[in-house]
Every structure is written in C-alpha cells, then in structure tokens.
C-alpha cells in the first residue's frame, strides 16, 4: 500500500516537473515570437515614416510645380495683352502710321520680328546670352517676351 502511494506521488512529481518544463519552454517560445513581432513592428513603423516623409516631399514638389506653371500662364496672358497694347495704345492705328512714317515702321516691324524669332528660340530651350541675362532696363530687354528673355528684368513704369 505504502509502495503504491510512493509510486503515485513520484509519478505526480515527475509529471509536475515535466509540465513545468513544457510550460517554461512554451513561455520561451512565446517570448521569442513576441520579440520577433516587436522587431517587425518597429521596422514597419520606420518604413511607414519613410513613406510619409516621401509623400510629403512629393506633395511639396507637386505644389511647387503647379505654382510655377500658374505663374507662367499668367505671364503668357500679360505678354499677349502687352502685344495688343503695342498695336492699339492711345487709339494707335498701325496702318495709318505705316503710311505716314513708312521707313520708321518698317524698322520697328523688322526689329519686332527679329525679337519674336529670338523668343521662339528661347521657348524651344535655347540658352540665354550674357546680354539677355544682364538686361535690367527697358531699353535693353526683348519687349516681345521680357519674362522669358530677360529673367533679371523687373517691370517698372
């Protein structure tokens, strides 16, 4: 009888110890999994932060680009208005003027044509000349497209 109780007790102890061992092993495995998860989460957060930063940079670049294009389109409108003004300023009639002062108007028209051709060259990507870059006075600029031809010219009356 006593031997049987001893055996049962021993068995319980052995099973208890085995159970504890298994439990500890499970805890270790859980711990390792949690550590791995933690590393993955931290990596994911870093990646997300990078993505957000890149998105912000892209957004800023898009805004900047839009701003530049809007400025350009407004310049176009102003250039066309200025061109119209040159023909009609103070009820000017270029036809009548050409009859009265033929040679002078011929000179002006040819100079204008030359300037307009230069504007097309610049618009197609030609490099500015030193003279064009340095121009700051109305007498030095290309009046057909000052914003394009003379980037350092500030409009004044």
């Amino acid at each position, binding site marked *: 009888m006593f031997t049987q109780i001893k055996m049962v007790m021993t068995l319980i102890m052995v099973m208890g110890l085995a159970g504890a061992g298994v439990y500890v092993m499970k805890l270790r495995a859980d711990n390792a999994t949690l550590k791995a998860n933690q590393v993955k989460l931290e990596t994911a957060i870093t990646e997300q932060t990078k993505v957000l930063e890149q998105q912000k940079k*892209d957004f800023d*670049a*898009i805004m900047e*680009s839009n701003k*530049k*294009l809007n400025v*350009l*389109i407004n310049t*176009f409108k102003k*250039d*066309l208005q200025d*061109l*119209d003004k040159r*023909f009609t300023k103070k009820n000017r*009639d*270029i*036809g009548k003027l*050409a*009859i009265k002062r*033929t040679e002078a*108007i*011929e000179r002006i*028209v*040819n100079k*204008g*044509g*030359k300037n*307009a*051709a*230069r*504007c*097309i*060259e*610049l*618009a*197609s*990507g*030609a*490099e500015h000349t030193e003279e064009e870059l340095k121009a700051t006075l109305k007498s030095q600029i290309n009046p*057909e*497209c000052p914003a*394009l031809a003379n980037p350092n010219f500030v409009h004044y009356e």
Partner: protein
Amino acid sequence: MNKILAILTIILLTGCSIGGEKKIKIFSVEKPREKLNYPMPTPLQMEEIFWHIVTSENAEEVFKKLEEAGIDPVLFGITDKDFQVLARNFAQIRQKLQETNNLLQEYKKYYEGENNGKM
C-alpha cells in the same frame, strides 16, 4: 567491434544528411525602372526675314529696289490688321512651345530627380 561497425554503418548510410537539408532562402530586391533619359529637344534656330512695308505711295519704289537687288518683284502681302493677327498667332505658338517645354522639364525633374530636369 560489432558496435563500432554498426555506428560506422549508420554514419555511412546517413552521410551528409546528419545536419539536415539546408533551407532555400528566397528574397526579392526592388530594381528601379530604367530611366528614359531622352535628351531635351534641340533648340530652334530661326532664320531672319525682312518685312517690306508697301503703301500706295512707295509701291513703285519698293518694286524698283527689289529689281535692282536681283529679287523677283513680287511680294506676298497682308493688311495691317492681319499683321496684328499674325503677331498674336506667333506669340501663342511661342507660348505653347514654352509651356510644353516647361511641362517636360517638370516631369523630368519630378520623376528623374533635380539634375535631370535641367536642360
């Protein structure tokens, strides 16, 4: 002796598989798309033209000068109003060219970086 023989036989039979098969690792590397890298369009080089202004008063003189210079005495004319229209049309073509070139530069700058956006 038999025991040693048995152990050696086991080792011989299991061979290199004692350590188990090595696992194949598959990993992916992101390779960015190749850049298009077209050069920017070559700038235009415009040829010079001369505008003759012909009125009822100077017409004869203009044609005489043309003949003297060995040029056919013929002119392709437009009225003063059409000249304004022509000037406006050219201005619009130039603006469209500038706008398109600018867009191209902006696209290049955005997708290929700051240095590639320059002409």
